[in-house]
């Protein structure tokens, strides 16, 4: 059908006719599903995600007319993303290809009237297996028009094309769990190693945000019921946010079972925020297994290999980041050959950092303070007489530092003492020492303007400042989730939510205690560096180290 010309006189009439026609055919059905086997879908998934064809060879194609490419870099998922809902980068739009878009006719006069660029490609007949094959091999779309030169022209067998078509029909097709017609369910996980004060500080921020969010959504829900057809997809995304507290107990080995039981009782769309000081791996693994986004928990020890997985996104690598920063600083400043004494208390977060730094600095000793011991000045002097080290790292909390200034006295005083800022959230409580440096992935004093939005919001919400890093992390998690959900609108796909977060974190007006948070496809730790901050010197002499 050709579009009727929109003359000044007939314009509105034509638009109305078009609107009625559009309504008359909504919702249109995808072409009937041909018989496909589970094996075909699995083969299609391998091709889509890994760029591996049915005979096990790597995908081959020409891009931008003559650039030959091969392998996983060509896999569909790179551009169209895991969700199949597309992306955009540098003004180049990658269209959605998930089955319920691809195998349906697309028409969008509203867009087309304003855009004759790539977006005009949205108007096209539904793809069939034949036109899909032509698109993949020759770069001709279902309208018969040439596609963007960015789209690779693939060397694919008929079986490969049938497999990828079968997979695309399943992609982002099932409705995500944790979402009902009127509600969107979130859970926040609290592990037993977080203190009650920290838990309350986090929950207070999250609950206040949810209350305000829902107060705003009430009107949106009403608007959705009366939305004009061209806004339905916008308003239909609004739902009441419901927060569930998932409080874990007992040893980490039992958490997987607890999480599964909680999920069965109440499926959620996202794990948001959350707090834990020690092991978080069981929560991470649960999210990966359930394909459940786990966004920005406040942790000391996030799992080390999150970038091999998809669903968990962290602020930083926690104490490991501090250890890595010191290792890099050590290497870059020529301390190779010097010895290092690490002092710590038991705990998964501290033990991980100690092991990591020890692997980089072989000389010296790791000293664990026994459970019943309270170190005083005499304790530190004895320790230093026994273990003479060039430098000392303290993986300790404030209550262990009362007599630590004694380290600077006498002939055995180390050249520098380093301490974990994550374990010492308030530098004002530290003893005055000449050689103490903080391993500090956070903003320096004077840089905290980024927290201004949080302060104003918290004041309005009647929330007092306490556990500032916990509050700031919780606020970041909820506001980012809010913005990302606004972006994905009614495409309520968990994969797409993660993809939007990968994409938008850098440009967000964020409130954070970190100097800079940045993500990209596949990146899972947003903060990348730490200051080595010599407390006796001016803060602006602190060195930023990216390991």
């Amino acid at each position, binding site marked *: 059908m050709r579009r009727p010309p929109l003359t000044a006189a007939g314009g509105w009439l034509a638009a109305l006719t078009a609107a009625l026609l559009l309504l008359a055919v909504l919702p249109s059905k995808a072409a009937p599903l041909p018989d496909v086997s589970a094996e075909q879908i699995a083969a299609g998934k391998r091709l889509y995600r890994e760029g591996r064809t049915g005979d096990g060879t790597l995908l081959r194609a020409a891009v931008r007319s003559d650039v030959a490419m091969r392998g996983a*870099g060509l896999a569909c998922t790179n551009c169209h993303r895991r969700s199949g809902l597309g992306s955009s980068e540098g003004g180049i739009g990658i269209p959605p290809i998930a089955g319920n878009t691809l195998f349906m006719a697309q028409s969008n006069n509203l867009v*087309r009237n304003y855009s004759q660029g790539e977006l005009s490609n949205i108007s096209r007949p539904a793809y069939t297996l034949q036109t899909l094959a032509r698109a993949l091999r020759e770069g001709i779309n279902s309208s018969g028009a040439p596609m963007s030169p960015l789209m690779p022209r693939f060397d694919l067998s008929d079986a490969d094309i049938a497999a990828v078509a079968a997979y695309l029909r399943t992609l982002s097709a099932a409705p995500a769990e944790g979402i009902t017609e009127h509600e969107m369910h979130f859970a926040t996980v609290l592990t037993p190693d977080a203190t009650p004060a920290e838990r309350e500080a986090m929950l207070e921020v999250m609950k206040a945000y949810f209350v305000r969010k829902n107060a705003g959504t009430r009107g949106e829900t009403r608007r959705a019921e009366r939305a004009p057809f061209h806004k339905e997809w916008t308003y239909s995304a609004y739902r009441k946010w419901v927060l569930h507290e998932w409080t874990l107990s007992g040893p980490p080995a039992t958490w997987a079972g607890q999480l599964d039981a909680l999920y069965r009782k109440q499926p959620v769309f996202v794990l948001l925020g959350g707090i834990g000081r020690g092991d978080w791996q069981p929560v991470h693994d649960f999210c990966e297994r359930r394909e459940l986004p786990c966004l920005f928990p406040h942790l000391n020890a996030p799992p080390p290999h999150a970038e091999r997985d998809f669903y968990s996104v962290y602020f930083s690598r926690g104490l490991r980041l501090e250890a890595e920063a010191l290792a890099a600083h050590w290497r870059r400043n020529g301390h190779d050959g010097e010895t290092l004494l690490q002092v710590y208390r038991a705990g998964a977060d501290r033990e991980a950092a100690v092991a990591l730094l020890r692997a980089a600095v072989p000389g010296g000793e790791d000293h664990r303070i026994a459970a019943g011991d309270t170190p005083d000045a005499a304790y530190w002097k004895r320790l230093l007489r026994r273990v003479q080290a060039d430098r000392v790292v303290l993986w300790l909390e404030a209550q262990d530092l009362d007599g630590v200034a004694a380290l600077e006295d006498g002939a055995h005083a180390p050249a520098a003492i380093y301490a974990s800022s994550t374990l010492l959230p308030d530098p004002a409580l530290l003893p005055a020492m000449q050689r103490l440096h903080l391993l500090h992935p956070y903003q320096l004093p004077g840089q905290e303007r980024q927290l201004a939005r949080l302060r104003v919001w918290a004041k309005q919400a009647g929330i007092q400042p306490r556990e500032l890093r916990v509050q700031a992390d919780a606020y970041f998690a909820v506001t980012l989730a809010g913005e990302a959900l606004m972006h994905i609108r009614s495409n309520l796909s968990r994969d797409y939510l993660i993809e939007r977060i990968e994409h938008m974190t850098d440009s967000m007006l964020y409130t954070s205690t970190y100097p800079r948070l940045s993500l990209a496809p596949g990146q899972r730790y947003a903060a990348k560096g730490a200051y080595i901050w010599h407390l006796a010197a001016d803060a602006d002499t602190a060195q930023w180290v990216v390991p």
Partner: protein
Amino acid sequence: MNTTDHTTRLHLRTLLCALGFGIATLAHGADMGHDHAMHDHSMHDHAMHAAAPQAASMENHEHHMQAMNQTGYQRAVVRYTLPSLQLTDSRGQPVDVAQLLDTDRPLAVNFIFTSCTTICPIMSATFAQAQRQMGVDARDIQWISISIDPEYDTPERLSAYAQQLDAGANWHFLTGDLDSIIAVQKAFAVYRGDKMNHAPTTLLRAGRHQPWVRLDGLTSSAELVQEYRQLAAATH
């Protein structure tokens, strides 16, 4: 088409891109005609105007217009003044940018990041293929890829990336501290603030004191080789 049109459409496109194409699900099914969709404008699109260097002088405008109509990229001849900056190569060695560029050897420069999924893999593959196509000639050129995500693209990551591309000794991958990387992007008028907004830009230069040929948009490798040959022929 007037400028206002450009601007309006550009803003709308930006907005729509930001919506992540959620809009595609707007009107399922109704085939309202696709007459305008018959042409693929993607690489000719005026959104590319956003990539035009603003402070740079544009010589050879005729050629630029012609090139834009025939190919997927825009060409401009520009001069840049580079501040003295220290970056780091993929072996972790410091590199002074001004020194690196103070050479009579021809240069080809692009901007990438290793976790970029859409345009960077193609830009890198284009560099690699252009080098293969040029054979021994490619060895005269210094190929330089500068990361715009320096805190993630450590020398180790860049080294692994270079290895995947089978990059030779005359293809340099550079990272650095965030401020220096922003400064070098600004010096070449490619800074977009957020790395996700970055646009594909390739810069060629025949030798010391020569202007840069700036290619905005994705070139095929044959086009890149052709641009280089044209440049080399004009200056010798």
